[in-house]
């Protein structure tokens, strides 16, 4: 029962540890910040430029969750929509290092940090992605390690550690 959506995409077997995915760029406007904040993070320093200037952030900055969302979107465009993805298990060590301010441009790289087959679900491969997100001045904005599932093309293949 092959999945017609993903059958021609890269599968778990096609990935290698150390593969670096260069992300695109996302410019952040005042409207972007305020529209996300209204829906998900309605704190005064994400909604009102005057309040933001006097806050710890020093100006209008995006919600950390919006920065995370833009980063994920860029990985979907460059990578996750080109592989047989099966969703995510979660993430570890998300660090917001510097706020993403109005008119900043977000970019970065993602590196495949580890690959292993799931023993309980032989169809599933577990992939850890390390994010290194930067602004236009190459300053660190956010890091995190995302754990996602990618489909194994041949679930009957022996596990590498078993084969060795």
């Amino acid at each position: 029962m092959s999945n017609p959506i993903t059958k021609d995409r890269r599968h778990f077997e096609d990935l290698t540890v150390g593969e670096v995915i260069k992300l695109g760029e996302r410019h952040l406007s005042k409207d972007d910040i305020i529209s996300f904040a209204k829906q998900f993070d309605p704190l005064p320093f994400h909604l009102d430029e005057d309040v933001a200037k006097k806050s710890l952030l020093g100006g209008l900055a995006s919600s950390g969750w919006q920065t995370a969302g833009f980063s994920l979107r860029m990985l979907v465009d460059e990578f996750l929509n080109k592989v047989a993805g099966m969703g995510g298990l979660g993430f570890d060590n998300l660090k917001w290092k510097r706020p993403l301010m109005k008119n900043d441009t977000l970019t970065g790289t993602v590196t495949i940090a580890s690959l292993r087959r799931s023993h309980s679900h032989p169809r599933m491969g577990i992939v850890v992605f390390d994010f290194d997100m930067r602004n236009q001045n190459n300053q660190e904005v956010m890091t995190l390690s995302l754990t996602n599932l990618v489909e194994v093309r041949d679930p009957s293949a022996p596990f590498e550690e078993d084969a060795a």
Partner: protein
Amino acid sequence: MTLWFEDIDSETVWPLGEYTFTEDEIIHFAKQYDPQYFHVDPEAAKHSHFGGLIASGWHTVSVGHKVMVDFMYAHDDMQRANGEEPGVSGPSPGVNKMEFKAPVRSGDTIRFDLKVKNKRKSNSLPGWGLLTSIISAYNEQDELVYRSEIASFSKLRDYKPKLKERVLLAMAAMPVFRKLLRK
């Protein structure tokens, strides 16, 4: 949290509230932030191992954050109505761990709660404490949808700055010095 650092305990579980997800909202969020086929296309999603459309985990987490912020505002109002001054919460430096445990589908009502796991005074920000909070989300079958461990700052009520810091703060408040500091 809307409590002062000193008043926060690690026993209380705070029921933050709940939210019902619709198909339109799931697709709208995913088109912007997570356009994988099982988040944006109900027909294509039937071919996935989920068997249908599910919300992006990042959507569920963002909604959980909104529910928490709304809870904080309501709690502030309640404290003011009782003649108390609400505490002050600060920015979050990060998330130690986020585990997505069960998918969210259109029509699901998810409830969120928060428990402070531990607290300590901040080394980097004088006058502030650092909290580690567990935020959990459950569906109507009481299955765990996600569990997260989030760090955040909370202001100390009883903080007395050291003499040197008090002098600096007082100087910073004087117009002459403020002009100098700006330069």
